[in-house]
Every structure is written in structure tokens, then in C-alpha cells.
């Protein structure tokens, strides 16, 4: 949960004044060779490098046996290779908390220089398309309730409060 909220808090923005993503930006499934750029971008956003975490996530979401996971990246061509602009990862979960199958958005990150151009929205739309293609009709995420910027981003994307309330306690 920390990964999700911390990364999203620093990356998402409510739609800004210039809402168009350049045509050169492509969104595709994350692959093993993207790992160094993903780790670097996440570390730049959150301040913590989590190589093992991202490696496992890429491996898990690219397994044919595990079609419920989805890890997408946004990239733009450069003189040599491509530059990573953002990523989004989510998963279809079913019957936990009594919930029918539903797509969860776990993490969304956008490069600081690429923000306020609608890239976060485009990544979210791409993930939603994957969820729909897999047959689910509902998407969920979790946000720190005092994180107004991220809350505003997801609200602007049409997300409303769902039927669940997160509960927790300190374990003594």
C-alpha cells in the first residue's frame, strides 16, 4: 500500500492546462529490459530504489499463466533507444472482501518532466482497457485521504467512493 500511495502521490496530477500527450509516446507492456529505467524512475519519484520489487512485478505480470496482472509503461523515442516517461501496474482480483472480480490500480508513476500533459490519464485509460478486455467492469484504487492532489486526479478521472471502507489498527 505504501508503494502505491507514495508513488502515486508524487506522480499524479489533476489535469493541467496542457492536456495533450505527444503522438510519439507509446504505451506497451513492461518487459525485463525496462527494469533499469523503471527502478530509476521510481527511485526518482519515491526516493527509494526497489529493484527486487519491480523485477518480481515484471516477471509476475508477464507470465502467461497469470493474465490478471498488467504492467504498462509509456515511452518516447530518443536518439538512442527510448526514454521511460511513466508506468502503471494493476491486477484483477476476485472475491476478496466479498468483491466480484475487479481491476485494482496499484501504482502509477509519471516522470516529473512529463507531468501535466495527460500522460497519467492515458496510462489509466490503457489499464482500464486491459481490465475491460479481461471482462471486468469496475476499477478500484486506494489513496491517502489527505492526499488532495492524487485524490483530485482519480476524481477527475471519474472515480467515486466505493462501497468499502479501509480499516486498520496498530498491533501491540
Amino acid at each position, binding site marked *: 500500500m505504501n508503494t502505491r500511495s507514495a508513488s502515486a502521490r508524487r506522480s499524479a496530477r489533476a489535469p493541467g492546462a496542457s492536456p495533450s500527450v505527444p503522438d510519439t509516446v507509446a504505451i506497451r507492456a513492461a518487459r525485463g529490459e525496462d527494469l533499469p529505467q523503471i527502478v530509476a524512475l521510481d527511485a526518482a519519484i519515491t526516493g527509494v530504489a526497489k529493484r527486487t520489487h519491480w523485477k518480481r512485478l515484471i516477471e509476475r505480470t508477464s507470465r502467461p499463466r497469470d493474465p490478471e496482472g498488467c504492467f504498462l509503461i509509456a515511452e518516447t523515442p530518443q536518439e538512442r533507444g527510448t526514454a521511460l516517461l511513466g508506468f502503471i501496474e494493476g491486477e484483477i482480483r476476485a472475491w476478496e472482501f466479498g468483491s466480484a472480480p475487479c481491476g485494482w490500480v496499484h501504482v502509477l508513476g509519471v516522470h516529473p518532466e512529463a507531468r501535466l500533459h495527460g500522460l497519467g490519464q492515458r496510462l489509466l485509460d490503457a489499464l482500464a482497457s486491459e481490465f475491460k478486455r479481461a471482462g471486468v467492469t469496475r476499477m478500484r484504487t486506494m489513496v491517502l*485521504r*489527505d492526499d488532495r492532489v492524487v*485524490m483530485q486526479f482519480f476524481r477527475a478521472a471519474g472515480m467515486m467512493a466505493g462501497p468499502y471502507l479501509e480499516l486498520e489498527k496498530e498491533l501491540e
Partner: protein
Amino acid sequence: MKLQVSSQLAIYAVLELLAHRDRPVTVGEIGAKYGVSNHHLAKVMHVLGRAGLVNSTRGAGGGYQFNGNVRRITLLDVIDLFEQLGPPAADPADPGAATAQGRALLQVLREIDDIARSTLGSITLATMEKLVEQQGAAPAAAAIRNALAGG
């Protein structure tokens, strides 16, 4: 929860100004739509003007126009101009204030207020416009569906 009338009117007024961005809107127009007195509405508009959220022009063709960033200003920003929604402070005059029961009740009430503030702070005016549009379209869509189903 229930908002104070002034907060509600301020939100309605701002949404009306946004719905008519191309021209100034008069207090009379807004008052007629929501069935409130021009006097009460004028006070609300004065507060909105003082906060810099609306501009007014006098004379024939005058009225109010919205002045701000709809993608940044939230419902909470508007409401905060008229009432304090924050968690209640412990009131020593409350008969249970010094008791564990009183403190427990205050803890629950603060949780509710936190969630309310968070929700209102997450809805920008731009998002609110989308919600209004959906609500406006919903009855029409339902009528079309009913007509098609019946016809």
C-alpha cells in the same frame, strides 16, 4: 451531512457562472433558478468576490463571472469561506467532555469529519461540472431507454 445554506448557494452560484462562461450572470437569474432571495444571494456573492473567486461588473449587461482555475479549486475551498467543517474541538462545556465516553465519541466524530473534508477537498469544480453533466444526462438517457424498450 448537511451544508449550511450559504455554502450550498455558493456552490450553486459558482456552477451557474461556469455554465455561462460566455457572459455575466445576475443574482436575479441564480436566485430565480434556486428559489432564493436576491438579498441572501448577494451576501454570498460578496464573500465569493472578496475571496477572488468571482468578478462583478455593474450596469446594463453586468453581473458575475467566475475567476479561478476550475481544475484546482475544490468544493472544500468554497465551503471553507462560509463554515468551518474541521474536526470539532473538545468543548469543556460539553457535559461528557472530561469522561472517557466523551473522548471516545469525539474520536468517532472526528473520523467522520476527516472523511467528509477529504471527500469535499478531492472534488474540483471541473469534476463537479462533469458530475452535473452526468446527472443532467441521466434522466434523458433513461427516458430514451424506456421509450426504446416500450416502443
